[in-house]
Structures are given as C-alpha cells and as structure tokens.
C-alpha cells in the first residue's frame, strides 16, 4: 500500500531498519515550466525536484519533511539571513501564517489582510503585489485576518479570502482570473487556509465555527471556478450522523465544524484527509446534546465524489473549542508487526493519534502534554474522561497544540510537535444566536502564572516522548524536518531555531524580532544553495549557508 508518489521520498520504516532514501535530485529547468506551469504530475512528485515547493506541506503527505541535504547538523550553525521581505501589513492578534510556494526561482506568497506577492527567491524583491478590497464589516475574518498560502496549477494561483471567496490569480501578473463566493461572510464565514490542488480540483474549507455557521469542504474546477462537490461537516436532518444531535434542523444548520486548515491527500486511495472544527456554540452545550458529528473529527473524503468514506472523532461533544483542524500526516509504518498505511494527528486536545488511513481504525492515542483532561483513549477509540474541570483547569482553548504544522521524519519514526502547557477554566453562558454575531457562549479564565511551550519529539509507534526543548512561553509556531536529521522550528519569543532530530540539541538560532505564530518553515534549492524561509511578524526571512563562491 506504500505510495512512492505520496511520500516523495519513500522511506520504509521497520523499527530502526531504514531503507535508502530514493533521492533523485533534478534541478528544475528554469523556463521549462513557463509554458504549462505546474501540472498534477508535478504535484504528485512532491519534493523530488529540489527547486520546488508547490503545495502547502511540500507534498500531499503532510509530512513537511524535505529531502534537501546541503544544510546538515554539522554546518547549520553557519546559517545566515540572505534577505528580508517586509510585507507592510500587520496581523492584529494573530500571525503571518503562510507557507510560500516556489517554482523556477519565484516565490508565491500570501499575507494577512489578503495581500499576496510574487518575489524573486534570490533577493526577496517583488514582482507584483495583489491586495483584495475587503469589506469593512467582516465577521470571523476580522478576528483572524490571516492567510496560509496559495494552491497552484498551470499558471494559476488559488487563494481564499476573509470575505469567504475563492480567487484564481494569474501567476505572471497577480491579476484575478475568476472569483467565486464560498459562503456569505455576513453570517460569520471566512476563509484562511491554503487551497489543496489535486487532479482537476481545487479543495477548500471554511472558517467561522465561532459564529452560527455550518462547515463544509468544497471541490472547484480550476478552469472555471464551478463547484464540483460539497461535503457538509454537519449532517442534515435524517442523514447519517444527525442522530448525534438533538432533532432540530435549525441547530444542525449552524452546528459549526469548520474545515479551516489544509488537509492531506492519498492519490492511490483517492482519499482526502481533513480536520474539522468545534461545534457551535463552542462552550455552551445545552442545545446540542450528543457527540455532535462530524465536529472535532478527521474525515476521509473520496476526492472524486466528495462522499465520506470514514470518520474518527477526537473530542466527542467538545465544550472547549478544541478544533481538530490540523495537517493530517500520512505515512506507512510497521505497527505491531504489520505494515500499516496510517494517518497521524497531534491533536489540540493534547493526545497524539495514529489511525489506519484506509479504514479509520484506531491504532494509538497517547497524551503528548501534561495538562490533560482524559485519562486515556480506550481501546474503542473513545476518551476516558479524567477531569471535566472539577479537578482544576483544563487545556486552554488554544490547545495542547494547534493548527501550526508538525513534521514527521520517516527514517526516525518521530513526529515533531509544538506542545503547549497552558490551562484555563471555562464558564459556559448561553449565547445570543443571530447571523454575524459571535456565539462562542462562554467566558474563559486562563491561568497566567504557569504555562510554557516545548518542541517535543514523539515516537509514533509507542506515542512516547523522546525529547523536548522548552520555550519560556506557550508557542504557536510550526515545524519542518530535513533528511539530514534537522528540525527547524520557531517560538513565541521570536526565535527561529534548528535542532538535532536525534537528541533535541539546539544547533542554531536566530532572533527574528517578532513572535513566529501559525507559520512553519519551508526550504528549496536555488543556484546550488539551500534556502530556508520563515514568516515572522511582518517579515519573510530567507536563510542559507554563506556563499563561498563569492
């Protein structure tokens, strides 16, 4: 079942026996891509062409694991900034959360407040800037004016907007080719994720679960913007899953379940893996007795039809805003003597999960934070509650981790996760339900005396913690690994850092001057040099080893 295409670098993991990385280093031929641009075949190749990073996680697997070898644990201490791009746009309360794409030496970058740019990857200088004229009565989009990146196909770039639209831009000019409305932003909808482009489809999800909205996952025609299918994350009356809600059509129509983080894809199975968000209201649950499917779940959706193949719910009947909007990480693992095709999620509820990605079967659920709410995940995959809040505070709404991408090194069998130890007490209150009005329904008291963050290495077969590196503050920055045994990560104090994947030793750090929030690094080759990029504050910074040729 192992998909060589999926992993890009196909590495078999068999308890320490590591297969040789099948690296084919073919530098992209500048100019050759110009005629056709990016094809689906290119996207299937993932990171095999070292000059490219064509989709949010680098490839469909969500591993964010680069095959590039120039920067190593031995030389990473020499990494220096090459250029800084200033976006000129602030992100009130959030972060610069994008992952740039790169093709033929050009970076395609989205920013907060629906700005976007094409930049020269050598210099960080700008070819063009796009800015959407946003309405002044944004709803959810005003509270999180962020964007996580482009999707790319042919000469088109796809980007979602804070007023819940999907745009196709011409990659040469930044001009708008078409735009369509995903949902009515007045109600509470917004869109912030990086679209996922697959064969003949642009897959996008929606934000706004803090408002009376109903989540969905959509597929659009890249040529025309016509919608091909829609999967509603909250079932309609009588549909499967509706039995986990009170029989109230009005309730279901605003049940939440946002799909606001880019998912992963297995082309061989033709399955999309996507996380879903909190039920609405977030904290107040008197009106939504039951497990509230398919909120706080991962759903496996047939890409050709948009139908649900299986689902797994991490937090049944959530009352703490622990959305399950994460990048699902796909891999093939030796699990209890058997090779399994799995999907892994380090969840906002503080547990690390391994599921069979063909069937959805629960394989493993282990805590990766010390601040917890459940004693364990039972053999049936359901949490056994330890603390409903009566024993003290619970993981806070920002969670034990969050949407910031984790990274997986298949050779080590280790997932690297930004863990957050921070807790809160929840006081639910009945919200007023009306379109355009936040209906979270509660007051949160965060314990500010304690709390810290950590980069944690999790053995994915046992769920055990191999090492951690502590940050003084709970952190919202993502992670990237490379085959040379490096882990790149950011923190809330503004440090961009490199670690030894084996030991957790810090090998390099650079103070970017602003918290790194929601973003994860990416890397690519250009002119024979490996660049590593990180968004921070209002800047995008590119690092490389010193150029000894000059």
């Amino acid at each position, binding site marked *: 079942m192992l998909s060589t295409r999926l992993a890009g670098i196909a590495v078999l993991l068999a308890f320490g026996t590591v297969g040789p990385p099948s690296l084919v280093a073919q530098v992209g031929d500048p100019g050759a891509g110009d005629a056709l641009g990016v094809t689906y075949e290119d996207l299937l190749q993932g990171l095999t062409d070292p000059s490219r990073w064509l989709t949010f996680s680098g490839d469909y697997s969500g591993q964010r694991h680069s095959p590039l070898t120039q920067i190593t644990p031995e030389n990473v201490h020499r990494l220096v900034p090459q250029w800084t791009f200033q976006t000129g746009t602030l992100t009130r*309360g959030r972060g610069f959360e994008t992952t740039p794409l790169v093709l033929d030496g050009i970076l395609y970058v989205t920013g907060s407040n629906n700005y976007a740019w094409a930049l020269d990857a050598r210099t960080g200088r700008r070819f063009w800037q796009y800015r959407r004229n946003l309405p002044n009565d944004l709803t959810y989009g005003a509270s999180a004016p962020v964007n996580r990146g482009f999707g790319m196909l042919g000469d088109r770039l796809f980007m979602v907007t804070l007023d819940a639209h999907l745009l196709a831009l011409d990659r040469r000019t930044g001009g708008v080719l078409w735009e369509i409305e995903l949902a009515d932003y007045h109600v509470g909808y917004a869109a912030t994720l990086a679209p996922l482009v697959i064969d003949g489809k642009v897959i996008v999800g929606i934000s706004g679960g803090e408002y009376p909205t109903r989540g969905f996952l959509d597929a659009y025609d890249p040529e025309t913007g016509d919608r091909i299918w829609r999967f509603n994350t909250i079932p309609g009356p009588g549909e499967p899953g509706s039995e986990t809600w009170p029989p109230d059509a009005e309730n279901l129509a605003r049940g939440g379940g946002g799909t606001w983080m880019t998912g992963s894809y297995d082309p061989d199975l033709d399955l999309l893996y996507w996380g879903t968000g909190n039920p609405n209201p977030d904290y107040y649950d008197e009106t939504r007795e039951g497990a509230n499917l398919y909120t706080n779940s991962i759903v496996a959706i047939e890409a050709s039809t948009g139908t649900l193949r299986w689902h797994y719910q991490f937090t049944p009947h959530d009352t703490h805003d622990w959305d399950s909007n994460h990048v699902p990480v796909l891999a093939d693992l030796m699990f209890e003597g058997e090779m399994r095709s799995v999907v892994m999620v380090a969840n906002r509820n503080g547990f690390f999960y391994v599921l069979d990605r063909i069937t959805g079967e629960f394989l493993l659920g282990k805590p990766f934070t010390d601040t917890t709410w459940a004693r364990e995940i039972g053999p049936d995959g359901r949490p056994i509650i330890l603390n409903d809040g009566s024993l*003290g505070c619970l993981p806070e709404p920002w969670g034990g981790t969050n949407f910031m991408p984790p990274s997986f090194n298949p050779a080590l069998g280790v997932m690297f996760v930004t863990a957050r130890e921070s807790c809160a007490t929840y006081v639910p209150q009945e919200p007023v339900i009306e379109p355009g009005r936040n209906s*979270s329904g509660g*007051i949160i008291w965060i314990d500010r005396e304690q709390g810290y963050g950590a980069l944690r290495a999790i053995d994915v077969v046992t769920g055990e913690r191999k090492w951690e590196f502590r940050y*003084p503050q709970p952190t919202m920055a993502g992670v990237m690994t490379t085959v040379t045994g490096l882990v790149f990560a950011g923190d809330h*104090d503004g*440090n961009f850092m490199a670690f030894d994947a084996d030991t957790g030793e*810090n090998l390099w*750090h650079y103070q970017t001057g602003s918290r790194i929030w929601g973003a994860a690094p990416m890397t690519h080759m250009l002119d024979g040099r490996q660049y590593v990029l990180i968004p921070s504050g209002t800047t995008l910074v590119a690092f490389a080893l010193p150029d000894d040729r000059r």
Partner: protein
Amino acid sequence: MACIALNRVFLILFIIAPLSAARILTAPLSAAPVLGAPLASPQGVNPYETDRTAIRVGRALFETRCAQCHGGDAKGISGPDLTVLWAVGTSDDRVFRTIQLGVSGSIMPSSSAPDQEIWAIVAYVKSISTVPEFENDTGDAVRGQEIFASTCANCHRVNGQGGHLGPDLTRIAAIRTREMLMRSIRDPSASVAAGYRAVTLVTEGGQRIRGAMKSEDAFSILIVDTDERLQGYLKADLQELTRGERSLMPEFGPDRLGDEELDDLLRYLGTLRGAAPARR
C-alpha cells in the same frame, strides 16, 4: 494552585448569578433609578464611576458582551488586557468611545448600546483596574513619607525621585488597595509583578550577579542588576542561572517595620494617586 483559587472565584460568580445578563436586558436599565439618571455630569465623565449598582450591572454586561475576547478577568484572551488601561493613563472617555465606535480592522465591533450601559461597563472595568481611596487610615502621612525616604526610596521612585530597581509608585494608590500594599510590604514574594522577579546568575568569569529579570527567551536573559545596570546575557555563557520565585524586595516584617510605622507608610502611599509617568 492558581487554578484552585480561580475556581473559588467562579463559585462566587455562580452564587451571584441571579444578576444574570438576560434579566438585566429584559429589565430596562432606565427602571433602575441610578442608571436611569440623566447624564448630568460633564461630557466624557462617567456618571457611574463609583456607583455599586451600576458596576454590578456593568459586570453582567461585560460578561455577556466582552468576556469572550477579553477574558472573564478582563486580562485578555484574543482581545487585549483591559485592566491596564487606566494604569497607562487612558481616560474613561477614551474607553467609552472605543466601546461605542469599535476598533476598525479588528473583531472589536461598534456598539449601539445606550450610553448608560456603556458607562456601566466602563465603571466595572475601571473598578477592577483601579481602587478607591483608602478608608479608615490611621497613620501619619508625614511620618510615612519620612519612612519611605529612608527605607523605600533607594529602589522605588515617586514623582521622579528615588531608585529604579522597583516599580514606580507615583500612582500606586490608584491601582492597589491598602490590603494589597500591606501584603506587598510584609510579604513581597507572595505576588511578584512581571519584570521584578529576582534572578541570580554566575558569569563565565565566576562573578555572581543579582538582579530583577526583565525578559527571557530560550537563549538569553535580560536583567537589571542591583546597581540598576541593564545587562543582557546569553544563557550558554553562564555558569549558573537561578530564577527565584521571590521578589528582589526584602520582607519588612514587624521586626523591621512596626505596625505603627506600617500604618504611617500606608497612609503616605495612599496619597500617591498622581499622573501616570507615561502621561506627564
């Protein structure tokens, strides 16, 4: 520990729940004589500043309309900490207008609520940010000032005079109750403000330095040492780093400061309600 303390707060919160938001909204504010009173005070001045009923109403309104973003304690979640507004010199009027107009480009909406309701919210948030004048003070402020000059001014400043190691106390009585100040003097380590936690470090050369920690990240630490020098260190260059939970301020128990002297000192501190240093 702090969580347990918080839980106690909630119990109290639930006990006084009859003052629910729904009730307040259904019972028009104008029915309450206090809130219904016309705004006779000059424009921009909160007519409910110290009105207990209005503050109670303001609290309920705050919890339904503001707490989702600003937190139950108004110290901020996704929205900013509101309890520091007055400490940095923000006026009632400015807070009122921010609630009324919203903050453009953010989730903070404008409000069409009646002025009385907005003033009640302002009064509530201010009530948990600042404190009324000390009552039943028995000490002698002049003697208190002398004690301050000889005992405290080495580290604390008032109106531009004094040391820099501890917090500026020019308007301390506007933001701390008499009880809080008494506790801070007798047992300063019970609650240490950010930026004043004691730290001891030993440099590569073996020099031992004590100071207040101003900032820390994974790799560096910034302190003000006991000679008021700003110093930054890379953690990798230090032989030892001890982050104290304690305050740099010594404890002034009854042996060092008698009850009568404490009364005098508190009487003096109670007069310190001057302009914020940032707004001179």
